[in-house]
């Protein structure tokens, strides 16, 4: 009997302890995650001849900078990079600001119709905005915005997800006592938001900022519809790079490498927070 008991106790203690195989399987998945990035750099750092070799080389060659500079000759890549930074930066700033404001209102302020309006926002999460591209395109053309960066920025100024996310966080992060104390001190609402609420919800705002930036940087369909080849974002420029009659893969993959490196660096630096953000959102949502 005692042996069974100690055996049980042992297996309870080892519950959730990884086996060696766990590390191997995970390592294979991480390598699989990395491989396409590596492959694209491999092709980008050599020439197209490598693709016809029966056994492709394993190590990068020395042509990356030559291929990269051809990217800048073929499409207005500097402009595309600048455009992407402007669009993603603006969209991130406004989304975080407006979402925090609305989140503050929904979490902590009293007003008529609050619950109904919030349910409405949650429902709109399910409306695929992608399907609205035709009227949006017509509207942008009529406004004369088509081709301009404002046509990409304005539709993304704030998102339902952002409002939902900030509201969920603000509920717990900001005690009523703090707001009341500030009110007693004679603070206006906007000052309470700026000086009391915003500092308290900074972690959630930072995560929202990262997500928004990544999403905006990688957005494709709408910028493709509304921007032209002369004034593209990075993603649109990449597509233009690929859509010739003959695909020069060293050139195209040098482009994808150039476009991916900045966001990959950001991702590796902030990876811990991004993972935490996804997992937190999963539990709360």
């Amino acid at each position, binding site marked *: 009997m005692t042996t069974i008991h100690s055996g049980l106790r042992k*297996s*309870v203690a080892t*519950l*959730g302890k*990884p086996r060696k195989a766990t590390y191997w399987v*995970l390592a294979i998945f991480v390598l699989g*995650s990395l491989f*396409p*990035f590596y492959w*694209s750099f491999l092709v980008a750092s050599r020439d197209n001849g490598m*693709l016809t070799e029966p056994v*492709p080389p394993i190590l990068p060659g020395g042509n990356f900078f030559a291929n990269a500079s051809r990217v800048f000759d073929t499409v207005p890549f500097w402009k595309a990079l600048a455009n992407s930074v402007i669009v993603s930066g603006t969209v991130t700033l406004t989304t975080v600001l407006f*979402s925090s*404001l*609305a989140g503050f209102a929904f979490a902590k*302020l009293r007003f008529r119709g*609050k619950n109904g*309006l*919030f*349910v409405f*926002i*949650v429902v709109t999460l*399910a*409306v695929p905005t992608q*399907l*609205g*591209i*035709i*009227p949006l395109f*017509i*509207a942008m053309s009529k406004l004369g915005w088509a081709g301009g960066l404002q046509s990409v920025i304005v539709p993304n*100024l704030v998102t339902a997800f952002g*409002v939902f996310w900030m*509201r*969920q966080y603000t*509920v717990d992060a900001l005690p009523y006592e703090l707001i*009341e104390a500030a009110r*007693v*001190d*004679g603070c206006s*609402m*906007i000052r309470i*938001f700026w000086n009391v609420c915003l500092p308290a919800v900074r972690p959630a705002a930072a995560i929202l900022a990262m997500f928004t930036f990544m999403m905006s940087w*990688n957005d494709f*369909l709408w910028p493709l519809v509304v921007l032209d080849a002369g004034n593209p974002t990075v*993603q649109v420029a*990449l597509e233009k790079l690929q*859509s*010739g009659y003959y695909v020069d893969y060293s050139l195209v993959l040098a482009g*994808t490498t150039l476009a991916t490196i900045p966001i990959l660096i950001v991702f*590796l630096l902030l*990876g811990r927070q*991004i993972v935490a953000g*996804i*997992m*937190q959102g*999963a*539990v*709360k*949502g």
Partner: protein
Amino acid sequence: MTVIDKIAPEGSKAGERTSPRPTFRHKLSRWDVKVSPYLYIAPFFIVFGIVGLFPLLYTAYVSLFKWEAGDDNPVFIGFDNFKELFADSQFWNALTNTISIFLLSSIPQLIIAMLLAALLGSRLRGATGWRVGILLPYAASLVSIGIIFANLFGPKYGLINDVLQLIGLDPVDWQASRFGSHVAIAIMVNWRWTGYNALIVLAAMQAIPKELHEAALIDGAGMWRRFTAVTLPLLKPTLIFVTITSTIGGLQIFTEPKLFDAMPGSNNGGSSNQFQTVTLYLYQSAFENYNLGYASAIAWVLFVIIVIIALVNFLLTGRLARTPAVKKK
């Protein structure tokens, strides 16, 4: 900040100072309290009105016209676009492709995501590092992925075919064959989203109390039994959430098939539309054939399909209504 009013008179509510007569500041403050919330939530409703609600309704309007891009005099034709659409074999083909690609991607993705979550949930050394590694593809842009995978799956010099030949199998013409192209596109989708979904499932798994597992273990449940009897039932809401989001995303799939084409820049989805999806067909109708009315009809049918699927999910679970977000405080 004024320190004078720090102690509010007894019995007064915070912020409503009981001064003998309403001063200008008092009125201003009450107005501030009343109006501010609406100002703070206004940006969302304005933006949603412009880019969500208006387009949805206007798409319905446009779909009733023969409306060429740049044409100022569209002709009202009632439901003709829809009639034409339902008789259009290319549309049904696109819908079949979309569903096929969706099933090929979401089913393996969910299964692998659960497996990964189970592995990531054990007490790993360097747990965060592994999680970041698994999530890496999430950072890549769809355009980059599309281009890279189109290259990897290339019929002549693609690495995948090289490997297949190396181990003695026949190369597959990934782009020309219908099933092959669906598999390749599904792999692209899975490569990007499996790690992300694994983390969502992992979060739900970690919310399961450890005692439940211990109790099951003491009752003599093996690993598989613990998984099916403890983990799986408690994961159900999360799995439904993941299914809904990937359904909505999957039905709108666009970038991957657009960039997978052997004729880059084409919107055909292959020489015989073998991997053209509904959104790609929509894009082609609107911005290649300039038939905005017809494209709007496609958009609306797709929207209705998505709503029906979401509704079915909603009715099946009834969970959305009970999420803490909607609950009254």
